[in-house]
Structures are given as C-alpha cells and as structure tokens.
C-alpha cells in the first residue's frame, strides 16, 4: 500500500499541464544505462493489517521489559516514564513538524526548545545549552572539540572510567580532526589523579570525566577540574541527569562544558535509540557551541517570540568553517525530556534520584550477602555498580533471563575485562520484591 492520493484522472491533468504524455518522459534525462530495468528485489507490499501482524510477530520475538525485570544500566536506564510525556510528544503538530525555519508559524517548537535549554541549564548549573545532539557519546565528542577550538591545542585526555563506547566515539571523532586522544588510567575504579597530573602538559586542550562513571562511581571531579585548569585546559564532564537530583551540578565545581545522555528523562529504552545528547557551556564558550540554539526576541509590536539564532556558527551558513556538521538533532526526544522535567518538577527530581540511590544501595547490600558475588571496588556510587562472579558474565546474563531478569552490560559486551564482571543497576522503577527475587536468582544462577 502507499499514501499517494493522485487519481489516474488527476495524473493525466498534471501531465497535460506539464506538456508531456507520460511520467516516463519526466525521467528522460536519466541515461538509459543508469536506469534500473527490473523491479527492486524487495518483499511485496502489504496492507496496514498485514503489516501490523508482521510487526507484532517481529516484536514478539523479543523479550521486552514488561516481561523481564530490568537491572541493566551502562548508559541506558529503565526509569519511569509518566503517561503525560507520551501525550505531549504524540501531538502531531510537534512530531510531524520540521526544524523551525519559519519562526512565526513554529513558535510551539521554538518555545519548547527555549524551555529545554533553560531546563538543562537549571539541571547542570551551566549558562547556555544547545537544542540537543544525537546522544551522550557524540555530545562528549562535540564537547571535546569545543575545548580544542577554544584553546587552539590539539591533544585531549579522556578518563579510562568513561563509558567505553563514549571513549570510542570521542577517539573516532577527534582522530579524524588530527587531535590526539590520551587515556588517563583508573585506580580503584576512579580516575587516577597522579596519572592525570603526569599526563598534563600545556598542550592539553581538555579533559573528559564521566560522573558518576561507567562503573557507577563518583569521581573526584573538583580535584580533576582544578588540575586541568591549572594546565590551561578545559574541563568537560559527562553527567547522568537523574543524578543531579542528589549530586552537585557541574557548574558548581568548575566544569566548562557539561554533556550527557538525556534518555533517562522521559525517553523509552527503545534498544538504544533515539535518545538525546545534551550539551551546556559557560557563557564564554557560547559561540563555539555546535548545532541549533533558540533565542528570545520580539516582533515589530514588541511581542515576545523565539527564533533559531547564532546561526553563523552552523553548517548551512558557515559550511566548511562551521563549529560542527550537525543539522538534524533529537528535538522530539528533547521535548520528552522537557515534559518529563516539567511534570516531576523540583521535588520530583530529588525524589527520583533519592529513590534510585536507595534501591541500588539495597540491591548492593543484598548481593553482598552472597558468597558467590564480589564487588571489586568500594567507592561511593549512585545507582549502578560492578559485580563479579565465577561465571562468565554473559552466561550469568543468560541464566538470569531464564529467571526473568536482565542485567548488564557484561564487561565483554563493551570490550572490557574481566569477562566475569558486569554492571547491575536499580532505579526507582524497581520494587523491594523485584530486588529480593533478583538476588535469589543471582544466588541460584551462581550456585549451580
């Protein structure tokens, strides 16, 4: 089936207006040798009912998280999504709209982006945020590019304790710009400050630290920031937005750029995307921000309105001299994040952070009762942590699925060692009963 409304009579009317006899003629400028002489080799089309049956079948081959209980983390989290978020992002005036190029008839999207920028600033304690980036990892890469552009230096440092996939993305983005990426090793599951000191020369543009880090631990962000600043570099922190209901915001400990993954804010897990990367900076760096930014202005009658602004940073104006190539972003996911923050509000953010902290700490205390489960590090953590057992972690994951649970990532899923280690996480969405049953399942799986 298709969605083409043109009847045969209307087609003939159009052809007459154009002055041709057939649609074929409109393609006459495509050289004969370049035309496809056969049908595309694709499955036959379907009606809506057939399609839905097929899509349900495919979806049915997955075991989703209303069926399995989620104790997985590692950059994507099973936080509660309030029903009203869906209502907001299901307004087709929003979701079938384009980037707001004609401001006067897209004030809806523009105001929501302005509000999103403000909310991200309120969360992070930074001065200015952009309208979103693809995800937390690419936001980290863009953040590091800002440090190079601002300092004119071409070497950056990344803490080994950052999400391995984020480190890979930063490395890939920066290597192609001729920027060297060095890793600052970990000690006891957090950044090794002495090693940082050794690697800091006055050629370092910036340092990336994730806080809480990939292992769930809190990082010595104040010390790390002071150290990199002393060498004239900038400090970039990747944060879990939910943690900011409890933890000090990056703006309070000297971060120059704050980035992060916004999925936890009202976006479904959706097998890894679409999510949203947020990026916020100190005032001084505003003209180095990548991507869309919305600003407030007025019309001729002095009425307040919003427009895309500072566009001379962007690819459609500046072309090869733009701050980034980004054009399409994650606006609808940013809208979900805004609606989420508006709904839960000042009090709710503190609650969701506190509840996640409590559930994760209860989970850890229960797991510690088992002689088969070890926690390699004893650092302060927020909502996830690392455990090791005698089993390969992927084997443990599979056994847990049989008992109705999902945990991870296994270190081997993200290229880390040892293969017996994995992440476990508990958010406010987990109940005591689920946690107790999960601990039983782990004990059972590791005791076999």
């Amino acid at each position, binding site marked *: 089936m298709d*969605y083409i*409304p*043109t009847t045969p009579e209307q087609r003939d009317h159009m052809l007459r*207006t*154009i002055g041709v006899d057939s*649609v074929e003629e*409109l393609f006459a400028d495509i050289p004969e040798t370049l035309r496809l002489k056969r049908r*595309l080799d*694709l499955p036959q089309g*379907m*009606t809506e009912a057939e399609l839905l049956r097929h899509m349900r079948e495919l979806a049915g*081959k*997955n*075991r989703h*998280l209303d069926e399995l209980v989620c104790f997985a983390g590692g950059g994507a989290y099973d936080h509660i999504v309030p029903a009203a978020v869906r209502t907001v992002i299901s307004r*087709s*005036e929003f979701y079938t709209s384009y980037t707001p190029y004609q401001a*006067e*008839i897209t*004030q809806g999207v523009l*105001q929501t*982006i*302005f509000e999103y920028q403000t909310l991200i600033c309120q969360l992070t304690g930074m001065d200015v945020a952009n309208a979103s980036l*693809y995800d*937390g*990892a*690419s936001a980290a890469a863009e953040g590091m590019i800002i440090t190079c552009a601002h300092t004119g230096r071409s070497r950056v440092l990344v803490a080994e304790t950052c999400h391995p996939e984020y480190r*890979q*993305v930063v490395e890939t983005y920066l290597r*192609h*710009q001729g920027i060297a990426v060095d890793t600052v090793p970990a000690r006891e599951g957090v950044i090794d400050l002495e090693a940082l000191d050794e690697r800091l020369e006055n050629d370092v543009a910036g340092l990336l630290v994730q806080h809480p880090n990939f292992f769930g631990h*809190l990082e010595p962000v104040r010390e790390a920031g002071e150290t990199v600043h002393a060498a004239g570099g900038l400090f970039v922190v990747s944060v879990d937005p939910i943690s900011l*209901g*409890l*933890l000090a915001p990056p703006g309070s400990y000297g971060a120059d750029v704050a980035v992060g993954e916004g999925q936890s804010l009202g976006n479904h*897990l959706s*097998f890894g995307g679409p*999510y949203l990367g947020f990026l916020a900076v100190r005032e001084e760096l*505003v003209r180095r921000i990548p991507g869309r930014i919305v*600003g407030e*202005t*007025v*019309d001729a009658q002095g009425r307040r309105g919003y427009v895309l602004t*500072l566009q001379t940073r962007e*690819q459609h104006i500046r072309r090869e001299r733009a701050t980034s*190539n*980004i054009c*399409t972003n994650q*606006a609808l996911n940013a*809208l979900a994040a805004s609606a989420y923050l508006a709904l839960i509000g000042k*009090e*709710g*953010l503190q609650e969701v952070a506190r509840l996640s902290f*409590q559930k994760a*700490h209860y989970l850890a*205390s229960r797991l510690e009762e088992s002689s088969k489960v070890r926690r390699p590090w004893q650092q*302060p953590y927020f909502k996830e942590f690392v455990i090791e057992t005698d089993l390969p972690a992927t084997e443990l994951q599979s056994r847990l*699925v049989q008992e109705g649970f999902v945990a*991870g990532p296994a270190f081997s899923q993200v290229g880390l060692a040892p293969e017996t280690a994995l992440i476990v996480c508990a958010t406010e969405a987990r*109940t005591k009963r689920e946690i107790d049953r999960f601990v039983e399942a782990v004990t059972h799986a590791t005791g076999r």
Partner: protein
Amino acid sequence: MFEATPLLFESGAPGRKGFAFPPCDVPETSIHEAIPPEFLREEPAPLPELSELEVIRHYVRLSRKNYAVDVGIYPLGSCTMKYNPKVNEEAADLPGFKRLHPYQPEETVQGALELMYHLERFLCEIAGLDRASLQPSAGAHGELLGLMLIKAYHASRGEEGRDEILIPDSAHGTNPASAAMCGYKVVEIPSDERGGMDVKEVKRRVGPKTAGLMLTNPNTLGLFDENIAAIAQAVHDAGGLLYYDGANANAILGISRPGDMGFDIVHFNLHKTFSTPHGGGGPGAGPIAVTKELAPFLPAPTVERRPDGSFYLERHRPQAVGRIRSFYGNFGVLVRAYAYIRAHGPEGLRRVSEHAVLHANYLMRRLAPYFDLPYDRHCKHEFVLSGKRQKQRGVRTTDIAKRLLDYGIHAPTIYFPLIVDEAIMIEPTETEPLEALDAFAEAMIQIAQEVERDPETVKSAPHRTPVGRLDEARAARRPVLRWRPPAEDTAATQER
C-alpha cells in the same frame, strides 16, 4: 486569537507536582554516610512546579501555534516533508520494540536484530550497494561516517596524501562541514549552464590529492546530473571515491540506483525518503550503504546471521573506523522505516518516486509564468525558482516566504541553493493531493500579483500569525538563550 503562552518557569506554584513517584519500600541507607558531602547538591535544581493538567495545557497550547505536515502542505525543498503513516508509529510503540534495553542478551532481542538485518539489505538493494551501517543518527552523521570510510580506505592502500574532497557549489551545507570535520580540504566545483556539475572542471581538479567527491543526484536544483557516469569515471580514474548524499533519494526509488551510477557510498535520510517523522528537528537516521571494498571499514557492531538462522551483533571488526555513537543507532526510527518499506514493496516505492516527480513538475509549470525559472528543464522531486523579478519591485524572497504564512501555508526552503539568486526551493512530495498543490500554487500566484499591486503588504508580512515578523538580528546581537528569574536577570544585565 493567539494569546502569549507563559514559559514553564512563569507558571505553577511552589510545592505543586505533576507526578508522584512510588514511596521508598526498601530499608534506607544514610545518604550522608554513603556519599561524602562535597559531592552533594546544596540547593535543589530550580525546576518548575506544575500540575499535570498545567503541563498538558502548556504543551497543547504551544502545539496549536505550530505548523506540521499533519496541518498542511510543507513544501520545504530537500527536506521531503511527506506524510508520516500512523501505522508506523503504532509499530514503533509496541513494547517488543520500545521496551528493549540495548545490552539485553542477544537471545532476547532476536526480533530487533532480524529487523535491522533485513533493513540493511533493503537499503543496499535500493542503493545498489553491498553492506550498510545503521548507526548514523542523521544525514550529516552518515556523511561524517562515509568520509571516515574514504579516509580509512585510502590509508589501507598507503595513500594518506589524499586530503581533498570535491563538492559542487550547489551542495548542502552539511557536505563541506562534514568534510572539514573529517579533516579534509574542500575543493568547490562550479555548476554548468544546465545546472549539473561542470565535468571539465571535475577533470581539471581531480588528481593524486583527491580523496573523493560528494554529490547529491538529483542535485539541490532538483536536476538529475546527466554526466554522472563521466564524473564517476574521472574520479575513479584518479583513485578517488564517490559519496552520494541521499537527501534527494525520493526521486529515484526503483528508478535508478546510486551504486549503478558509480557511487561507492550512499546515505539515506530515513526521516525524508522513508517517511519517519521529523519531530520538530529530529530524531532522524542516516544509514550508509557501501561497496564490498569499503565494507570492512564499517563500524562495529554489525548484525550478522548464523547458519542456524539466529542473529548476533558482530563486535570484532579489526579494520573498522570506530564508533560514531553509542549502541546501535536510532532503533525506533529504523522500525518505522522498515515498516514503510514493507508496506510499499517494490512497486509502491517506485510509485512514490514517480508521483514525487510528477507533482514537482506540475507545480513548476503552474508557477513558471509568475516567477523566474533559472533552469528550465524537467525537474525531479523538487525545483528551484528565483525571486529576481520580485526583487526588482523591492520585495525579497524572505518577504514572499513570510507572506505565504498568512495563507496558512509553510514556506519553501529559501536562499538555497546558494547559486540561485533569491532562491525558492520547492518540494511538494508524493503524498500531497492535487487540491493542496493547487492551493499552494494559487497562494504563490496571488503573492506574485500582490508584489505588483501592493508590495508593502508582502514586505511587512506575516500579518495573521501568532507573532509578527521576529527580529532575528536582535536575537543574534543580544542573545537571550534561556530564561532567568527576574531578579537574577536584572543582576546579570547590570554586570554587563
């Protein structure tokens, strides 16, 4: 008619909540014992405090001040604002897709992997290429990855000196920006009098420094580059590769394939050609398809099938360029595009392109008497007019665009491509009915007449929108990029 909508921050009341989290049902740990005080937030984040109804009203009111495909024709050139089928939304909303964690064991996500496996093959068949990566989150992201592959390919052959990318002067801004982001120098190639790339100039500029060429075909003028075979040969003979910007692929589905034209890498904008919603600016997806020779450089993980028919993520890819994002791409967008392709099948997709081209040519002929048409030949899925004639009357293209808003119609893309003076770039898409095409044409024709009769009305437009023409210069000169509480705002102003 349209009241101003206060910001979230100007609404609500202290203590109000729009959502209740469950009470704590586990024995509590003392936060102050578990976390050293220097890590803790001193003041709560100053978020708004609203009830659920206030939040819903806020957004519903804002949505009513927003234009969208579901409201009316959205003829933005090079954006392919076609209808977004609702069944695809329903499919993506199935818990079996929406409620999956990216690190679930592979045996629990076989349906998701199967969908990705087949979508990759569908896109390869449509492109005429061999393998694809679904990781890029947008067209520009695909461009960046494609250019990285070009770099890796040349490096694997010991040809690191190739540091130039050829790009036509009609290209999308993302092309040169992506090239620069990948560390390349941009060599701009002028267009010829038919609107194609100047072949003589391509031949003159290719050489041992050439890494590749990026081209949109049909190009941003909506014209098919007839010389593509000669261009491809010149670039290949010089040792370079060809990158196809798929922003305009809505014109060629099942009709001509970039791989057959000689392109080595293609990105598709799933949010354009394959109907996934634009979301007010995103999310999209920009998968790239490549030749066999380039496949080893695609980033990990790829989705592969075992002899027993099960699917898995291949993470071991020693020659891969590296990741460009976390996880596996914008999966929810992939689900919608997969559903779109399955619904249409081969005949349906070909009908899509035939009608996209038919509709564009029809509109072009209806408007040609009233506006300058710089390249007068059959267009593909879009065409470009020039507002030169109107400019002589003191009315700029931006004025015409703003006046269209008064007719309740979103304006086309304007001032792009850069090689056309006062450009008006129109892409109606195949899903617009004749009546909508005619209404758009009538509005444009009336505006052309207003320019003659009453240019002031056009120059001061829009008149019937929630706000009048907004002062963009002021927004850029004195940036206000966030709300601040009134007291803080005054203090900040005084500091300056």
